[in-house]
Structure formats: structure tokens, C-alpha cells
């Protein structure tokens, strides 16, 4: 088992999906064990693949050629498409996050989804998602990546709308699918543009071609910006972020897996993977990545301050994190983005799964009906607190190291304005994450009834939470070269994941100090604003009603889009419908038929039905043809 067999990682969940789809209902326990076994096996099999990769790195001492696996798929007249899987360092990081979080989430789901009537279908979809996501990560060419990209989008649609008898869930699924599709069209066009210019879908060949200057700069820039549109949709960046908060209508394990740890970071992964293209293109492309990332960070953080639904706040924090990763990528820092992605996968899945536990225990998801839950749910409260501190960036939790790396890269590679905004965002993040914890777990319960029945979840749910909490604490330490060396890696994650040259973890005291002070100020500020009766917060809300309304209404983006759909899309649709009904159908189709009927009716009176008339007409015709032939040919 080495890199050559990497296709197995994706094939195992795919096989589980097929078996569950066809025979799931006949299996004991609806086949949940099969789904978990498949993703568990994929997780375990990463290690031999990783060992093989490390051997190759040691042998060559530099960036090795990625280990290829898979087969030729379509070969036609010089056009060659591989069903190809490639393993390199970037892939390994994604593989670990995806398969570990998927495993934890599926185990947790055994408890969370226990009494659901569509229990088996849930695990079927989860297996399909795991297969598609692992394919996306492993794909060595753009076309396979795009197929997997749509595959995860489809699974996301199925799982957001898992409780599709609920209208809001069905609407949210539709919204997510349509919104991400807007970006996906861009991605597809971008891939086609690259293929048209280079004649290959293979990523590495495309990068070489871009470096060699095969494409003109405006052409390449257009192509990468279109590809970035795909990332904007999938990773919920401004202005296509509106689907992610609504996606919380799905079951909480789905939110944890798909809408926090894995699928939404596919956009980040795409940009990280294709960064050589961005670097070969006009600098405006990367500036666009940074700019949209910053806007996203700010909008999501401020909206997170006023939302009251626990899962929605965590969803906004996810958008916030994705924005941070985009800012890091915009600075060209793949390592920083990937460290954050790695750490984020764990602590965000932890936050979602513990929100799920709250929902499971109290059947309330709004902080206005929660409060004081720590006493009733000590395990959930503790792990949620760890997740909050990690997200806020309090040392030495994983979020701090990851976030510090991003802020450092923004301070070194961007201007002071970006740096200041990043520091401010750390403060706001601390503020709203701590607010969420305070409102949920401390103070007096606002709903006595729900509070009385609250209790910690069964072990099948708490064990994944505890494992994720441990990782949320320690995952950040992989930035240190010493830790990497101890684990058998060539240095820390920064030296492991790189595209151009190895990058050791840098720790600048002043940047770290700013980050720590901002985060602590945020967390402590939250205690001032929201603890107890939360009077200062209410006063602030009353003092600036316009700002409060702006944030509460999500910057009116949903309303804007709704108006756009009503006024433009539907109006255009009505015109098309009118055109189809009146011009195409009534005039074109029915009209031509009516014309034939009418002319037939009129012309039939010219028929006598007598043989000599027809014989005479035939002979006249022949004579006429003969005359014409004589004129033409003689």
C-alpha cells in the first residue's frame, strides 16, 4: 500500500455508498456500520500513503513528484483524460482533516440521528459525500476535480434538505444549490479556458504551461478569476455567502462535516492548489482574493454579533474563518491557509457537534431560550468552551497558532490597512464567540422547561466530541518544527505544505502580542457586554438602532437578492414564458399545424377523383420536365 493505491481512499466510501443504496435496507442497523467502517478504513489507509510520501521526500530531499494513482479514462486522438489521483503534501493535510472529521461525525450521528425514519439514507448520503470529497482532494486533473466538486455540492443539497418535509429545509437546500451553482459555472468556464489554451486538464501540466507563459496575461487572469468564482460560491465568500447560514437547516452532523470542516474549505483548497496560476496571472487576481476575503471576514463577524441561533452564529464564524483563509491565500501564503484549514476543521466540527448536543438535549437552538446549561451539560459545555477559545484565538489552543500565522502573513505581505483590519477581526471574533458561550452556558436559564430536561449526550456522541476537543487543543502545535520532527515529518507543517519553498513557522512577538491582546479583549469584552442580564449589549443595540438593524438583517443581502430575483429573474422568466406560449407554441407549432389543416381544407376542392384528370396531369408534368431538360442540357 503506497501512493499508487491512493484511489482506494475514495473508492472505499464509494463502494459503501453503492452497497447502502442498493441493499442498505436489508442490512442490520440499516448499514451505519458499513459507512463508518469504510471511512474509518480510508482514515487508517492514509498512514501508509503518508509513509510512502515521506520516504520519497527523504529520498529526493526536495519537493517530490507527486505519487500518481489511477487509470487512463478517455483516450481519443491525442486527448487523454485520467481517472487520476495524486498525493502530495497539500492532499495529505486535506485527507487527514476530511477523513478524521467524517469519521467522528458519522460516529456521532449514530447517536444524533438514532430515531430518524431515514436513518439509513443519512448514512448513504454521508458515504457518497466522503467519496466525492476524497476524490476532490485527490484528483490530479481539473475535470475529475470538477466532477467531484459537483458531487459534494449535490450531497450538500441532499443533506441540507434531509428533512425535506420541512419547507424551510427544502428552500435552504435549493438556495444552497443554486447559489453555489452560480460560482460553479465560473469554475467550469475557467477550466475550459485553461484547457483550450493548454490542451490538457492535468493540473501540473497546466501550471507548467502557465509558468512558461503559454497564455497571455489577461487570458490567464480571466480564467483564474472565473475559477475563483467557484471557490467564492463553495467557500461562502462575499457576495455568495448567503447560502451557508441557511444551510443550518440540515441535521447538525451535516453542518459539522459539510458546512464547516470539509466541503466549504474545498474552495480554499482549490485556490491553494491552483495558486501557481494565480501567481502567474495579474496581481489583481490575488488582490481580489484578499479583498473578498476581508469583506467576508467583516460582514460575517458583525452579523455573528447579533444572531441568536446557536448554529447560525457558528455558521457565521465558519464564513469568518473561510474569509481568513482566503486573505492568507491572497497573500500567497499557502502554508498559513492550510494550517488554519487543518486546525479549523477540528475546532469547527467540535463547535457544531456540541451545538448539536445542545439541540439534542433541549430541542432549542436559540440563545434566547437557552442559558445556564453548563451545570446540566458539563462535558458539552467544556468542549464547547474549548472550541470557542480555539476559534477566538486564545493561546495555546490550535486556533491561535493558525490565526497568528495568517495575521503575520497579512502584516508582511499586505499593507498596514489589511493588518489593522485583521487585528480588529480577531477582536470581533473573540467578542461573538464568547458571547455565544456566555448566552448558552452561563447565567440563568431563560426556558426553565428545556433546562430541566437537559443532560449530556450518550457516549457515542460525547467521545467524538472529546477527541475533537483534544485535537482542537493540540492540532496547532504541528506548526513547530520540533513537533513535526518528532512525528517523523520534515519539520513543521509550514515546511511540509509548500509550493515554492519551505517555510518555517515564524513567531513574531509583536504580531502575536497584538493578536493575543485583541482576542483577550474580545473575550473579556463579551463578558462585560453579555453576562448576566446583558444590559450593556441591549443598551448598545438601542443606542445604534441602524447598525443593529443592518447586522440583524444580514446587510439586507438576502432582501437584495430576493428583490433581484423578483424584479429581474422572474420578470425575465415571465417574458420567456410569454414568448414560449404565444410565439413559439401558439404561432410556431400550433400555427403551422393550423396552416396545414386550413390549406388542406381549401385545396381538397380542387380534386376531381377521376383517373383521366390525373393521367393528363402526369403527362403534362412529364412533357414540362422534358422541355426543361431540353432547354438546360441541349
Amino acid at each position, binding site marked *: 500500500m503506497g501512493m499508487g493505491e491512493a484511489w482506494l481512499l475514495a473508492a472505499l466510501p464509494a463502494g459503501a455508498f453503492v452497497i447502502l443504496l442498493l441493499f442498505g435496507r436489508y442490512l442490520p442497523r440499516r448499514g451505519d456500520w458499513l459507512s463508518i467502517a469504510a471511512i474509518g478504513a480510508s482514515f487508517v489507509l492514509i498512514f501508509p500513503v503518508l509513509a510512502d510520501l515521506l520516504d520519497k521526500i527523504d529520498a529526493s530531499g526536495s519537493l517530490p513528484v507527486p505519487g500518481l494513482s489511477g487509470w487512463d479514462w478517455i483516450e481519443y486522438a491525442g486527448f487523454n483524460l485520467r481517472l487520476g489521483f495524486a498525493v502530495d503534501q497539500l492532499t495529505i493535510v486535506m485527507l487527514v482533516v476530511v477523513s478524521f472529521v467524517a469519521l467522528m461525525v458519522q460516529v456521532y450521528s449514530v447517536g444524533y440521528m438514532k430515531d430518524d425514519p431515514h436513518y439509513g439514507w443519512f448514512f448513504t448520503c454521508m458515504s457518497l459525500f466522503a467519496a466525492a470529497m476524497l476524490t476532490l482532494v485527490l484528483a490530479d486533473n481539473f475535470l475529475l476535480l470538477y466532477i467531484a466538486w459537483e458531487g459534494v455540492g449535490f450531497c450538500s443539497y441532499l443533506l441540507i434538505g434531509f428533512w425535506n418535509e420541512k419547507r424551510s429545509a427544502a428552500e435552504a437546500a435549493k438556495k444552497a444549490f443554486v447559489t453555489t451553482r452560480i460560482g460553479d459555472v465560473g469554475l467550469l468556464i475557467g477550466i475550459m479556458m485553461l484547457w483550450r489554451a493548454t490542451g490538457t486538464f492535468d493540473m501540473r501540466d497546466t501550471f507548467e504551461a502557465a509558468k512558461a507563459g503559454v497564455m497571455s496575461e489577461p487570458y490567464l487572469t480571466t480564467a483564474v478569476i472565473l475559477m475563483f468564482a467557484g471557490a467564492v460560491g463553495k467557500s461562502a465568500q462575499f457576495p455568495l455567502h448567503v447560502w451557508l447560514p441557511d444551510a443550518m437547516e440540515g441535521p447538525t452532523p451535516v453542518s459539522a462535516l459539510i458546512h464547516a470542516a470539509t466541503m466549504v474549505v474545498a474552495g480554499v483548497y482549490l485556490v491553494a492548489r491552483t495558486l501557481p496560476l494565480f501567481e502567474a496571472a495579474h496581481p489583481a487576481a490575488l488582490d481580489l482574493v484578499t479583498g473578498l476575503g476581508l469583506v467576508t471576514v467583516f460582514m460575517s463577524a458583525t452579523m455573528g454579533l447579533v444572531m441568536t441561533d446557536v448554529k447560525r452564529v457558528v455558521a457565521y464564524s465558519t464564513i469568518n474563518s473561510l474569509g481568513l483563509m482566503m486573505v492568507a491565500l491572497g497573500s500567497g501564503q499557502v502554508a498559513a491557509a492550510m494550517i488554519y484549514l487543518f486546525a479549523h476543521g477540528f475546532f469547527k466540527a467540535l463547535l457544531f457537534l456540541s451545538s448539536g448536543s445542545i439541540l439534542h438535549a433541549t430541542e432549542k437552538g436559540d440563545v434566547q431560550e437557552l442559558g445556564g446549561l453548563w451545570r446540566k451539560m458539563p462535558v458539552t459545555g467544556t468542549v464547547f468552551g474549548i472550541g470557542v477559545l480555539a476559534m477566538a484565538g486564545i493561546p495555546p489552543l490550535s486556533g491561535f497558532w493558525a490565526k497568528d500565522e495568517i495575521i503575520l502573513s497579512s502584516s508582511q505581505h499586505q499593507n498596514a490597512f489589511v493588518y489593522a483590519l485583521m487585528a480588529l477581526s480577531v477582536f470581533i471574533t473573540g467578542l461573538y464567540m464568547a458571547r455565544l458561550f456566555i448566552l448558552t452556558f452561563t447565567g440563568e436559564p431563560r426556558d426553565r422547561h428545556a433546562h430541566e430536561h437537559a443532560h449530556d449526550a450518550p457516549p457515542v456522541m460525547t467521545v467524538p466530541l472529546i477527541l475533537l476537543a483534544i485535537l482542537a487543543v493540540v492540532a496547532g502545535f504541528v506548526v513547530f518544527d520540533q513537533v513535526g520532527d518528532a512525528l517523523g515529518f520534515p519539520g513543521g507543517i509550514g515546511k511540509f505544505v509548500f509550493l515554492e519553498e519551505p517555510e518555517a513557522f515564524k513567531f513574531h512577538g509583536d504580531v502575536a502580542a497584538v493578536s493575543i491582546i485583541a482576542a483577550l479583549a474580545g473575550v473579556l469584552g463579551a463578558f462585560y457586554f453579555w453576562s448576566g442580564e446583558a444590559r450593556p449589549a441591549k443598551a448598545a443595540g438601542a443606542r445604534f438602532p441602524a447598525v443593529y438593524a443592518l447586522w440583524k438583517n444580514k446587510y439586507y443581502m438576502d432582501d437584495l437578492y430576493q428583490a433581484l430575483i423578483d424584479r429581474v429573474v422572474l420578470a425575465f422568466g415571465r417574458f420567456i414564458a410569454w414568448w414560449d406560449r404565444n410565439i413559439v407554441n401558439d404561432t410556431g407549432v400550433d400555427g403551422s399545424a393550423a396552416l396545414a389543416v386550413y390549406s388542406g381544407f381549401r385545396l381538397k376542392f380542387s*380534386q*376531381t*377523383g377521376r383517373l*383521366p384528370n390525373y*393521367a393528363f396531369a402526369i403527362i403534362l408534368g412529364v412533357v414540362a420536365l422534358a422541355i426543361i431538360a431540353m432547354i438546360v442540357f441541349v
Partner: protein
Amino acid sequence: MIPMQHFLVLSGILFSLGVYGVLARRSAVLILMSVELMLQAVSINFIAFAVYLAPEAFVGLIFAVFVIVVAAAEVGLMLAIILRIFRNRATANVDEVDLMRW
């Protein structure tokens, strides 16, 4: 040797006679006979061209045989139809048969 034009003239006369018969006659049987005349005129034409222009090729002669075979089959069919019409309408005069009229 008789020149080819003689055969062509003969075939032209036969064909014209056939056309005249088809147009002028009212009896269905006579019309059928006129049609046969036209067909045989065409056969003569084929054979004449075959013998004079391409003596080695066999095509024209084969064509003539085909025409005769098809004509024989057609006569059988047409006589059957005429018989049915006569049974139904007690006439074989085509002027009195206008079943195809609207």
C-alpha cells in the same frame, strides 16, 4: 445493319400511342393495355441503347427483363383491382369511377 435511330423512332411511336391510349380511352382495361404499350416502348429503348452503345455491358438487357417482370406483376394487380371495381360499380368506365373525390 439497321441504324439505331430506327429503333428509337419505333419506341417513340409506341410510347406516343400508349400516351394517347391512356388519355383517350375510357375503358380501364384499354388504359391498362396502353400503359403496357408505353412500358414496352421503354424496353425497346433500353435494348437499342444497350446493343448499339455498350455491347459488352449487359445492363440494358437486364433492365428490359426487369421491366417485363414488373409489368407482368403490375398487370396481375391492376386486373384484380379493375375486377373489384367492376363487381362494385358494374362498370369499367373510368369516368364513372370517382371514389377518390372529396
